[in-house]
């Protein structure tokens, strides 16, 4: 009897341990981070670059959905902002309150980023911005839960002005004080911010600003703007727009005979070469664009050695989704790199050092990020300023580069540390917009 009793006790104990063990396993399996991902998959912004950003982020997320991070499952919930700020806000709130996501990632348009960041901060949720660049998202806001590894809009504007300032005498044969520049931009948060950077850069360089003007990205006609530009006779035109306003402007500028020494774009529509070429034809040749460097053009020799295989993988996966693309847009790599940074740096630290994936742990982990130059696929490093700083949440080490499209290829031409060739400046004689 005692033996039977002992056996029953042993079996009972074993069963209890098994049940407890399974429960513990189940609990371990339940450990997961649910990430709400928002880009524009429909509406004008989708074709203007947002869909490419979505593809880049998804390629990286898919890898970690398979493997998980530090014992946590990764689940991505995607939402379409439909190119509308109100929809972006509603989707962000829906993902947080109904889908119970732990954080939000993505956002293409600055017009969406500005209000969504405010709302997410209010809800005390973590937001990781991969794309939108307007300084207005973070400037003076002192948000605690919103972080952006991406360069800011005024940096874009300053970078292109610096590029022209350093080349004014040598390439354009004019002292900066004699150089006439025009700044035109779509009138949303993105265009206004880049133009602000342009203006500050122009003043710093001593350029003459002959025209600075905003326009609605959905305006059906820009001919009056082109006429004003012709009257103002700028040497260099700095343009910030989405699409299709860029192609409409380019087409009307050609038809109305606008002539300049250089046409310089600032990301968004200028970052999607395929569409630029389709819309402008040969006129897309020699156009400049400013963006974070394309991950496929970044200098891999100075990069963290674990990154080149990731870049290769992103390229291969992208080619499966969009085969036959002549120049892989920088948009894809931008989202891929910034998503990868979160999943390989911020998230593991939050789990290991701060014990989970709640907003506090993610925030502390983000503030600890200290990636040196060459530590991301985009070439730049990452460091967020301490709380209370003017641009809290903005990566201090990010920078865009100036590229030029030459014969269906893109080349980094500025800053000199990243440049792979000399810029073709001014526009060669015989090209549509050339004032030579």
């Amino acid at each position, binding site marked *: 009897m005692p033996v039977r009793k002992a056996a029953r006790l042993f079996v009972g104990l074993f069963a209890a341990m098994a049940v407890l063990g399974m429960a513990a396993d189940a609990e371990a399996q339940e450990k997961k981070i649910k990430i709400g991902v928002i880009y524009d998959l429909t509406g004008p912004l989708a074709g203007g670059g947002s869909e490419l950003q979505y593809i880049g982020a998804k390629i990286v997320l898919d890898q970690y959905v398979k493997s998980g991070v530090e014992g946590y499952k990764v689940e991505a919930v995607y939402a379409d902002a439909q190119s509308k700020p109100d929809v972006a806000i509603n989707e962000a709130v829906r993902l947080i309150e109904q889908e119970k996501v732990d954080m939000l990632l993505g956002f293409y348009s600055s017009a969406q980023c500005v209000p969504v960041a405010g709302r997410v901060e209010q809800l005390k949720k973590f937001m990781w911005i991969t794309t939108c660049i307007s300084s207005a998202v973070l400037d003076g806001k002192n948000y605690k839960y919103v972080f952006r590894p991406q360069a800011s809009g005024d940096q874009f504007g300053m970078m292109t002005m610096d590029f022209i300032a350093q080349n004014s005498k040598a390439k354009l044969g004019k002292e900066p004080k004699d150089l006439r520049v025009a700044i035109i931009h779509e009138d949303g948060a993105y265009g206004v911010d880049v133009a602000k950077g342009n203006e500050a850069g122009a003043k710093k360089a001593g350029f003459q600003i002959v025209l600075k003007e905003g*326009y609605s990205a959905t305006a059906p006609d820009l001919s*009056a703007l082109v006429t*004003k530009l*012709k009257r103002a006779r700028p040497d260099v035109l700095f343009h910030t727009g989405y699409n299709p306003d860029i192609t409409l402007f380019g087409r009307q500028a050609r038809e*109305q005979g606008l002539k300049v020494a250089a046409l310089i774009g600032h990301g968004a529509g200028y970052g999607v070469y395929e569409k630029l070429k389709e819309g402008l034809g040969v006129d897309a040749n020699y156009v400049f664009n400013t963006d974070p460097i394309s991950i496929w053009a970044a200098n891999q020799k100075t990069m963290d050695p674990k990154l080149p295989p990731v870049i290769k993988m992103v390229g291969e996966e992208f080619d499966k989704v969009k085969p036959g693309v002549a120049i892989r847009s920088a948009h894809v790599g931008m989202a891929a790199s910034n998503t990868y940074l979160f999943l390989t740096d911020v998230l593991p630290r939050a789990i290991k050092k701060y014990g989970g994936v709640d907003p506090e742990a993610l925030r502390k982990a983000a503030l600890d990020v200290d990636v040196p130059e060459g530590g991301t696929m985009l070439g730049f490093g990452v460091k967020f300023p301490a709380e209370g700083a003017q641009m809290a949440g903005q990566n201090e080490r990010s920078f865009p580069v100036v590229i030029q499209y030459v014969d269906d290829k893109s080349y980094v031409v500025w800053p000199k540390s990243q440049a792979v060739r000399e810029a073709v400046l001014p526009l060669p004689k015989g090209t549509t917009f050339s004032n030579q």
Partner: protein
Amino acid sequence: MQGFLDIFDIYLLEAVINGILLGGVLALLALGLNLIFGVIDVTWICYAELVMIGMYGMYYMVQVFGLPYWAAAPFAIMLVAALGAALHYFVIAPLLTAAPINQLLATGGVLFILQSFATVAFGIDFRNLGIRLPVLTLGEMHFSYSRLLSFIAALAGMIVVYLFMTRTFTGTAIRAIAQDRQIMSLMGVDTKRIYLVTSALGGALAGLAACLLVLQYDVHPFVGLSFGPITFLICVLGGLGNFIGGFIAAFVFAEIISLGGLFSDLEWGYVLAFAFFIVMMFIRPAGLMARRS
């Protein structure tokens, strides 16, 4: 004197002429919508989306199937004409006696259906016909041939519609129905057929606009958003259903946009145009060319 010359220079003339050419584009868009409203007394909120479908038709025929532009255009016009007739048959006809708001909501629903259909069927990419027409140069002034074509088409379209309405039996019947819907059926006129013909004609005019707009704009599912609201404003400003009023309103609107944009920020051109519209609605609520009752 110098101040005068600074303002009244060659660029002012260019802006005036560009305003006229933009007016041609807007007049072309307003023509079909005015016809529909004038006869059937229904506002097609989805009119600009019919233009968008026509633009896609042109893109696929020219870029994908390799048809020459001039051969593709009649097919695109027929396609949108058939769509216009189908819209009337399936959506408008069952609602002819319903409250105007129901008709408005129904065509608003069609707007979203067409946008979503285009997104699913054609994707979100911007498509371009890839045709570069030459530029007309007069001294320092340059003008777009595609805009010139739109202007000529709008003018010709208005004359043809006018002649059709005044010189043919069907046109006379259409005008008669526009005046009194009930009495014409008592006099033996097949109103259903006339409505269908009118809708097809309105659709054909949207198709014609599509053929010319596709030379100037990228095609995407939401291209209608750029034109739809302005087209409605012009129709209302000219007097809904009044072809000549719509034609003149298009040019007035376009000139305000063009010259307002030249002398101030481009955005102010649109603000001035919309402010003018609001003021005119107070002064002449039935439209610029409305007859005094």
